[in-house]
């Protein structure tokens, strides 16, 4: 695609991640091209099976077998992450790029105090005194809104929201350049979700890190992100800034998606729905993967896969509607 420039943080080039299962080859991520800048927050949106989580995992080379990166490059700070050794990747994980997972309960060690989680993380990667690490951990926890007296609590003593804050603190402990958050608020109640999103907004300012927010909830993206990337059936179908997107989405799937979700501020518009069902990733439809459900489908949509077009500056869409 486009060559990386100094402002770019991460670039995915034709990334393909396939799962080799007993039933067949699941093409979870099938040719994704993507660039994001330093300090940008990108909302990666898609439904279950769209490949968004796999994409996030593949950046850190954490895709579990039987999946693997089949083709493509993941460019970060002048390195191709797909070519690094496991040792080199370990130096990147947590330190340059970190990840926040959906379920904080299973990601935290139930036998380790909350504060210690952070202290250990810091000390594993940096050569500093324990006292210093503890001090940093305390400050970090304060930053994410956890009172100092909870430093010595165990994970089960904390609520879901607080545990997620700890996860965020962990992710930021080594001041990474990029944080990937996989559905960080999906398991949380609406008020806690709001508080976590507020927190993320604030931290964005302070730490100025890149953030990829993976979610199925478009509204969450509207709250926090600068840009939005929409995934469908393993491919990136639209990528644009958030304001233009919500104003007028380009891809028919994006359009249909926005029309099918209830908006609490609008009164009684009739919700539309998308006919059909998401495709089978072992045997996706020929041509455009969305054509079987697309109200604008033409003949060529079922035969050839559309290319990605730059509709406006930094607004990309993968659809024949926009191909002149």
């Amino acid at each position: 695609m486009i060559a990386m420039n100094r402002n770019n943080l991460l670039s995915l080039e034709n990334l393909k991640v396939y799962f080799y299962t007993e039933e067949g080859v699941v093409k979870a991520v099938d040719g994704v091209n993507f660039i994001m800048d330093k300090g940008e927050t990108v909302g990666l949106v898609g439904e279950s099976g769209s490949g968004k989580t796999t994409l996030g995992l593949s950046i850190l080379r954490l895709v579990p077998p039987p999946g693997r990166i089949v083709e493509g490059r993941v460019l970060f700070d002048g390195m191709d992450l797909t070519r690094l050794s496991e040792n080199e990747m370990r130096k990147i994980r947590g330190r340059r790029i970190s990840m926040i997972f959906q379920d904080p309960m299973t990601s935290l060690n139930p036998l380790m105090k909350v504060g210690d989680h952070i202290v250990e993380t810091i000390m594993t990667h940096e050569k500093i005194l324990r006292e210093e690490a503890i001090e940093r951990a305390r400050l970090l926890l304060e930053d994410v809104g956890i009172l100092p007296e909870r430093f010595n609590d165990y994970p089960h003593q904390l609520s879901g929201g607080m545990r997620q804050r700890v996860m965020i603190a962990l992710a930021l402990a080594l001041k990474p350049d990029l944080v990937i958050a996989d559905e960080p608020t999906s398991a949380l109640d609406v008020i806690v979700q709001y508080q976590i999103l507020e927190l993320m907004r604030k931290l964005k300012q302070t730490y100025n890190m890149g953030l990829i927010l993976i979610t199925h909830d478009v509204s969450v993206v509207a709250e926090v992100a600068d840009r939005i990337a929409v995934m469908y059936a393993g491919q990136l179908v639209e990528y644009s800034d958030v304001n233009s997107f919500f104003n007028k989405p380009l891809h028919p799937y994006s359009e249909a998606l926005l029309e099918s979700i209830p908006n609490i501020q609008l009164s009684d518009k009739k919700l539309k729905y998308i006919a059909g069902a998401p495709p089978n990733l072992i045997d996706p439809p020929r041509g455009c993967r969305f054509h079987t459900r697309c109200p604008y489908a033409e003949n060529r949509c079922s035969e050839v896969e559309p290319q990605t077009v730059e509709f406006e500056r930094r607004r990309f869409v993968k659809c024949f509607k926009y191909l002149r």
Partner: protein
Amino acid sequence: MIQVKDLKKYFPVQRGLLERVLSRKVDYIKAVDGVSFEIKKKEIFSLVGESGCGKTTTGRLILRLIDPTSGTIIFKGRDITFLRGEELRRLRKTMQIIFQDPYASLNPRMKIGDAVGHPLEIHGIAEGQEKKRIVFETLKKVGLEPPEKFYNAYPHELSGGQRQRAAIARAIIVNPEFIVADEPISMIDVSLRSKLLELMKQLQEELELTYLFITHDLAVSKYISDKVAIMYLGGIVELGSKKEIFSNPSHPYTIALLSAVPVPDPSVKRKRIDLKGEVPSPINPPSGCRFHTRCPFKEKMCEIEKPYFIKISEDHFVACHKPFSLNINQHYI
């Protein structure tokens, strides 16, 4: 159709052997702590709240899937609070439930046709060929066509959305009058939810159903309900028609909820009520107003006195000592 008066459900906290021997005191989780409301015939009444507020327990209490600790449940003029055994079983013909998890609510070893048709057998409505015919008809009604294909399929062959439709078919096949829908779409993919909601609305009209719709999603509640009740820590804090609740929310918790719901529009700027702290434990709910520990507007009275329902309008009640007025709350929504 349904009247609930001061319904309570307290769950005893499990205690270890040592505790049981050393002390007599038993703690209770006050899951539902004095809930009262009415659901009219053909109404879609939604019970909204965050996890742990008691909405799911309330739904199960009304359906008598669990026994109440105290209070009254009246169904079509009949007191069913302590109904048991055979009478309760027969009551099931008129009230049904749709569960949240479509992957778990169907017996994996039963064909869809058998599962959906089973209520007919249980209540002696139809058997054999007649049963099959009714099942086919019902499958068509919920959009599972061709019915032959789905009749013989097993749950694992169906998608989440299809399974939920099968669950709906099972619920409506005996022509019930009342259905409790417990978060029926929260585990369904986002783009398929509206379809299922439409189906439920359509069935409501066709079969003249009354719904109790339990959800944590305010936007969905706004879309589908006639009446809304907001629950917090085992009690209802605000109750009213959809229009009233969403255009004139009066309880600080309701406003906090509404202002916290993310909106798919980045240009929207709202004032928000930020709640401090966390939801208190239901074992030891706060004195006075159960919400006072987190309420940014609380006063001395709120800690001491429990608020009773104040009537704001004919179909709008709020349990608060200082409810919001119409002008102020507009800033938040």
